[in-house]
């Protein structure tokens, strides 16, 4: 149906801002909902609204049932002749959707040339082997060939018998696959100023970062670091739950990260990702400078990507973002983003992963 294609192209041009700039202000996102392991994920697709006279109902609607649910209600709307099915997604599919939605480039792992043997397949043939692997057809063909060459084969009386040297066996050939190791280090500031809302933002963002990076490597290792004035390594669960109070000393976190990288993940063998989330209010100016030094001297040489996300609670405005920006603006391994609210997560992911490193 070529006509719909031309309408679709027109719509895409409008969305990309090529034509009809003034319509861009109506651009919102329709959310398609899907479920993933009990977690509801939404898939944003661009949507342009034509304004109409409508009521401002303040989210009132009529529903049916016991009223319990996931709270993802969308009023009383319904599509003609369509009904919504729940969809199960694997993390890989989610990563693919994310990549499509945000137009992310594929990650180019370093160390492509490194080979590692991993598994193999029965693709070869040899003349000796266990009887259980005997290839009957090939053995028979070999015997037939021998008889024909010797001139003893009689087509009117096709009798073929195998001798020892006719036997052929399947054999196992090892296969080499390129191997790239990857590790992700997540660090989060858990000082008193990081509230639940901020942690939720970090959780959402790290879920998607994880999904995308995992789609490009096998067996990704993750390390979680929390810090306030001092840093420590924790497990995933504690990472999102822990609530400390106290000040923020960023250098403590970067020192710990540098040590972990040095001890466990030598740069030549690992693709390393380091994401740090904080509100950016560091204890002192000196410590900020020291932190930046650690990043420049110890961390960056080993890292594929250093992502810094500044989660800004209402009214706070940390200055560490600016410290990093003035210092590393030209370095493409450093990605900085500010997260004033949940909506900023998408842009932040894009700025972290948009480089394809």
């Amino acid at each position: 149906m070529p006509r719909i294609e031309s309408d679709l192209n027109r719509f895409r041009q409008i969305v990309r801002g090529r034509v009809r700039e003034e319509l861009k202000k109506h651009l919102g996102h329709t959310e398609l909902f899907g479920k993933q392991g009990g977690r509801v994920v939404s898939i944003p697709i661009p949507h342009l609204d034509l304004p109409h006279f409508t009521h401002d109902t303040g989210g009132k609607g009529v529903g049916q049932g016991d009223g319990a649910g996931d709270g993802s209600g969308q009023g009383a709307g319904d599509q003609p002749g369509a009904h919504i099915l729940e969809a199960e997604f694997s993390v890989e599919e989610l990563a693919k959707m994310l990549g499509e939605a945000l137009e992310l480039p594929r990650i180019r792992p370093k160390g492509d040339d490194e080979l590692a043997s991993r598994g193999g397949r029965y693709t070869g043939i040899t003349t000796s082997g266990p009887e259980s692997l005997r290839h009957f057809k090939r053995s028979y063909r070999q015997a037939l060939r021998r008889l024909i060459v010797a001139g003893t084969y009689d087509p009117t009386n096709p009798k073929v018998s195998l001798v020892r040297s006719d036997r052929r066996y399947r054999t196992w050939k090892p296969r080499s696959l390129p191997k790239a190791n990857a590790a992700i280090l997540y660090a989060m500031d858990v000082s008193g100023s990081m509230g639940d809302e901020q942690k939720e933002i970090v959780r959402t963002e790290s879920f998607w970062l994880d999904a995308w990076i995992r789609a490009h490597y096998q067996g990704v290792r993750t390390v979680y670091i929390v810090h306030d004035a001092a840093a420590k390594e924790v497990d995933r669960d504690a990472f999102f739950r822990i609530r400390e109070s106290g000040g923020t000393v960023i250098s403590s976190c970067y020192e710990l990260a540098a040590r972990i990288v040095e001890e466990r993940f030598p740069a030549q063998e690992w693709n390393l990702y380091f994401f740090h989330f904080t509100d950016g209010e560091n204890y002192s100016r000196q410590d900020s400078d020291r932190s930046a030094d650690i990043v420049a001297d110890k961390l960056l040489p080993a890292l594929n990507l250093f992502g810094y996300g500044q989660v800004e609670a209402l009214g706070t405005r940390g200055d560490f973002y600016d410290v990093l920006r003035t210092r590393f603006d030209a370095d493409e391994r450093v990605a900085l983003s500010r997260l004033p609210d949940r909506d900023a997560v998408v842009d932040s992911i894009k700025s972290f992963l948009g480089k394809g490193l």
Partner: protein
Amino acid sequence: MSSVLPPELSREQERIEGFARELGLTFFRVVFEMVDWKQMNALAAYGGFPTRYPHWRWGMEYAELSKSYEYGLHKIYEMVINNDPTYAYLLQGNAMVDQKLVMAHVYGHADFFLNNVYYAHTNRKMIDAMANHATRVRRHMERHGVEAVERFLDASLSVEDLIDPGAVFRAKPRQNAEPTDAVESKDVGRLPSKPYLDRYVNPPAYIEERRQAMSAAREEAKRNPPQPERDVLGFVLMQAPLEGWERDALELVRDESYYFLPQRQTKVMNEGWASYWHTHMMTTRILSDAEVIDYADHHSGTVAVSPGRLNPYKLGLELFRDIERRWNTGQFGPEWDACDRMSERRRWDRKLGLGRDKVFEIRRLHCDATFLDEFLTQEFCEQQGLFVSKKNARTGQDEVDSRSFDDVKQALLFHFTNGGRPVIEVIDANYGNRGELLLAHRHVGVDLRMDWAKEVLENLTRIWKRPVRLETVVANKPKRLGHDGTKPIEEDLEQAALKTKTRAR
């Protein structure tokens, strides 16, 4: 456009059509087309029609449908258009039992299209009309540029719902109404008298009063429109200084809007009616034993409820069944209403068997608003677990606000009256004697969504070519919003009135 129906399906169609006739359904000839999912999505984006005028909004719909189909979020099973013959689509690769279900469902819709009174005026050759609309818009785009025409269409579409749902049921206004000078020719009603008695027979104050009343009546007669006009689109079409192609574009938008109006007005009834018949036909006549489980699975998907969203299939189906049960057992009328003993009510059965007749009558005469107003009962509400939900401003989640019958019914009626859209009327086409358009919003306790209202007004200036104003109420204060083509206008109503008065003085 599509392939011929395979023989096993056309045999099924014949069978199902036979059952439908036997059960008393009547319809135009129904034509099924087999399409693949891409065609199905494209057709759905076009509202079921094979051709529509070029517009980006179909492309957007298509993108949305394709995406959610690819991710397995939904699948369109049936689509049917109100036309003679009635066209319906079957999705290639669906299981046989699904195809049968869709066919049975479609015959329900086809019967509804033909018999419901709200559809009586619709153009039954709409497929052809839509194709003509497409040709017309393409021609305008070739002459005047894609962008200019598209801009105008966007503006027109943003007021496409400002039509008069009642217009189709009223006689057209008389063309040559009483000429306005009829008022002028009447004199002030001076009685004959001797000059020396004139002051007493015709008191000057009274004569002056009469004179003023008559001049006011003359002014009134000049009013355009004479009465507030609901069909804003039609009014603007007649009176705005439009270019030929603009008039044509606006007219086709209005035609399509009137065509789709009954489908918006009868969503619950139409889907309920079709579901009522597909369940009846499938379970009593069509299904083979092996197909029962698949059918049950699919049907329960269609009528599934999810929190925060009203399923018209479910609501309509249950309400039709409830009505059938009530009229079969005689649970209606004054005697039933007067009975307040629960035990008796529960056992109530007058064995009237009027249910089937009643539902046929309802499908002819009602639209969603009247259907729910008349037949929604407290018992039904409780049994179906209907509730009013409200967004919690703090958590951003929908929560149950009320389960009381009155609240639910009020919310439902609000949602289904005028499609849940505000009522807007034209009051004056010559506002301030400057040829400006004045609209009024019939405020019913809910404000307009402001940002959109302002943009609609801006869009209207593109059509009317002069400033446009709208009287409404914002946060309990009467206001006049508007747009003069370059910048928005916002006036407090009392103050504005004051200003005109001072100027007059």
